[in-house]
């Protein structure tokens, strides 16, 4: 029997980065429509205006404390684009390492602190795996975080050596990095990485990183999951629970994936239902129809950010980015799909919109691929050679900086006039994933993925909705800057 829709406003949505509120229209025990609101506005794009150009290297990273390096790299690349700057090999290698350290730490943090604690909720107490999930994943005293947070902290010693500190470093410059690495430090970097690898291989994967990276399809993933008791490693435990809770049937997104490419390791492109095409940032626009923002649809190279808090059609501070007018998803799943990893290609061939399980798998797979790459980058550093080319003269005009943050494609569009910032627009990964509806009424990626999510009787903060939301690893502070 069809009932009238009821409305549920869910928040505070914690264990995402920043502020999030989700409005759900529920009908027949499932979400009929979702509206995603980012209820915080700080105005970084406005704050940057009128500043000396290089100040963006200080201000822009402070948009976000969880991916400040990604913001640094985007700002530095936007300046480099303006000045046609290049960097020495050591500069690229160190930049790769600093960015990969942040991406990898983020993937781990997301899994153990933000996503997995929901698997230990008492609503799952009837399941045979519950006691194990509780022991490993409970917020606060779960063994997974208790074991791997110290490993993460020591992994971030790499930031101490290469970037001075984390978050909010100024080491990343248009011409390279400010810190050279001497031969002794090179050994210390390898030691840090070896220790982190050991922690991941012991606790998270209970297998070698190479075995995880070599999983080449759904059959291989399932065979791997079944090859040992379900509690052997946190990844296997997750896969076991995902199977019980049907995580592959939850959270299907738009099926259009963007990656700007990363590290020279993951290829750029756009995946759109069976076809891979080139990612052209000039096709990106931002729609303001349902944002609390003035103005109409514009390219980020021309758009403005002028808050309009009383706009009646608005329901979020987030704008709605679109690629050639279309909704798209970004993140590890998109990156690995575009790059063509066989496991992810198989997952998306089977479920074109992806799922809660697929997003988590893609992140952990990427973690397994990044660490060995980092080892090769460290070995390639040549200590007595330059790490940074001198600053170039910045001409007036536009510049674009793209980077892959852990959560997906991040772009900075800068414009200089008389050496000062006359224009600055940012599109962050979660701006893509958590965008509101556009002028045509098309929901954003998460809004789409939430439709159909089951809501159980009496639930005020539906647990399946939480799984879907957190599967994207949202970063709301980046979203609205």
């Amino acid at each position, binding site marked *: 029997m069809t009932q009238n829709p009821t409305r549920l406003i*869910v*928040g*505070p*949505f*914690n*264990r995402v980065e920043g*502020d*999030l509120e989700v409005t759900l229209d529920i009908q027949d025990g499932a979400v009929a429509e979702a509206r995603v*609101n980012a*209820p*915080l*506005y*700080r*105005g970084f794009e406005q*704050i940057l205006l009128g500043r000396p150009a*290089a100040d963006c*290297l*200080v*201000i822009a990273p*402070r*948009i*976000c*404390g*969880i991916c*400040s390096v990604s913001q640094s790299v985007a700002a530095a690349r936007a300046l480099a684009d303006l000045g046609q700057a290049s960097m020495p090999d050591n500069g690229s290698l160190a930049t790769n390492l600093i960015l990969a350290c942040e991406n990898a730490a983020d993937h781990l*943090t997301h899994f153990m*602190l933000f996503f997995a604690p*929901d698997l*230990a909720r008492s609503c799952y107490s009837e399941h045979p795996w519950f006691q194990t999930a509780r022991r490993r994943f409970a*917020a*606060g005293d779960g063994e997974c975080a*208790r074991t791997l*947070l*110290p490993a*993460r*902290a*020591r992994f*971030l*010693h790499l930031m*101490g050596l290469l*970037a*001075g*500190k*984390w*978050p*909010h*470093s*100024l*080491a990343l410059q248009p011409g390279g990095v400010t*810190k*050279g690495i*001497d031969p002794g430090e090179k050994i210390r970097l390898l030691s840090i990485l070896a220790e982190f690898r050991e922690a991941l291989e012991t606790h998270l994967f209970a297998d070698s990183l190479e075995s995880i990276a070599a999983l080449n399809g759904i059959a291989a993933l399932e065979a791997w999951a079944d090859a040992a008791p379900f509690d052997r490693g946190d990844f296997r435990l997750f896969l076991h629970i995902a199977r019980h809770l049907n995580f592959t049937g939850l959270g299907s997104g738009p099926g259009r994936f963007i990656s700007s490419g990363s590290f020279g390791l993951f290829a750029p492109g756009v995946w759109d239902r069976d076809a891979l095409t080139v990612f052209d940032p000039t096709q990106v626009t931002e729609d303001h129809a349902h944002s609390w923002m003035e103005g109409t649809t514009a390219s980020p190279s021309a758009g403005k950010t002028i*808050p309009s*808090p009383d706009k009646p059609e608005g329901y979020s501070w987030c704008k709605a980015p679109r690629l050639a007018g279309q909704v798209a998803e970004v993140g590890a799943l998109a990156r690995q799909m575009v790059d063509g990893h066989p496991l992810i290609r198989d997952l998306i061939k089977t479920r074109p919109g992806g799922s809660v399980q697929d997003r988590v798998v893609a992140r952990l797979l990427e973690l397994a691929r990044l660490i060995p790459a980092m080892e090769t980058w460290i070995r390639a550093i040549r200590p007595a050679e*330059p*790490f*940074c080319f*001198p600053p170039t003269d910045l001409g007036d005009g536009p510049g674009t900086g793209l980077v892959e943050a852990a959560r997906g494609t991040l772009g900075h569009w800068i414009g200089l006039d008389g050496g000062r910032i006359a224009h600055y627009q940012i599109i962050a990964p979660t701006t893509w994933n958590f965008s509101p509806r556009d002028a045509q009424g098309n929901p954003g990626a998460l809004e789409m993925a939430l439709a159909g999510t089951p809501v159980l009787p009496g639930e005020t*903060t539906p647990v399946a909705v939480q799984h879907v939301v957190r599967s994207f690893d949202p970063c709301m*502070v980046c979203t609205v800057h």
Partner: protein
Amino acid sequence: MAASSSSDTFNLLWLQAASCGGCTMSALAADDTELLRSLERFGIRMLWHPSLSEESGTEALSILEDCASGRVRLDCLCVEGSVLLGPQGSGRFQMLSGSGKPMMEWISRLAAQASTVVAVGSCAAFGGVPAAGHNPTDARGLQYSGWDLGGALGKTFRSGSGLPVVNIAGCAPHPGWMVETLAALALGNISAEHLDALGRPRTYADHLAHHGCGRNEFYEFKASAARPSDRGCLMENLGCRATQAPGDCNIRRWNGYGSCTDGGYACINCTSPCFETPSGPFQETAKVAGIPVGLPVDMPKAWFVALAALSKSATPQRVRTNAHADHVIVPPARKPFKSP
């Protein structure tokens, strides 16, 4: 982490106002263990933290409401991020999701119940980066708006313990500053004399970021870096404010091995009010007649000029050469002993 209180725990509630989350991210690396475990050692119990707690939605709101109404004892309220008063004093630039109320309203209700209020980071302390430029959101600290009293809680605010807001300033603050301050509060070891004139814990604010700087020898001889990645002193050309910045950043390292100056870039004095709006570019040194404007805090200018000239004339060739490279070109070496 259920919300109940007992007399032998120190109940702490952590809110993120208009923050970037960086203070929490920094805190997660505390002592290389993590925040919660580092605090547990001192009997500190986290009633709720937006990044670390299981409770979401209505469960989370009920914890906040229990604290705001006094049903649960609130020993310490930590706020990370600036408090947004805009637009037009409504606070609507940050609504606490699910509650229909502005974050500033929750903060003032909770602060009124808290024995101690702690501003975590320079945003919560002084306004921070969101208050830069023309401050589009009317961002404030809890007790301060820049250098002036007049933050979101009002000029005369005192918490239940009688203390002003404890300002663990820094962008982000070192995890050690956070854990030590909270632990000292739990042990009852912080009174007004343990805070500096701006409410910062003196445990770290009694030092300057310059103390222990790895570029000390270059500073002594005014052998200055000219461009990013040079090893020389960053003060003369590249905007370093470590001689004016409160903080023990170079005494206890960041992330195991680092600091800003060891990382090769300028200290931007992020523990001070209004650091976000310097008079010139962050990474350039403001000068008048070739002399840096921002000299060491308590050094007479004439002496600085005289000593700088003297030390420059005495700079060893080794130091001069190494100041302009990203690795050591000339190692320190004595002349070989002559055989008798």
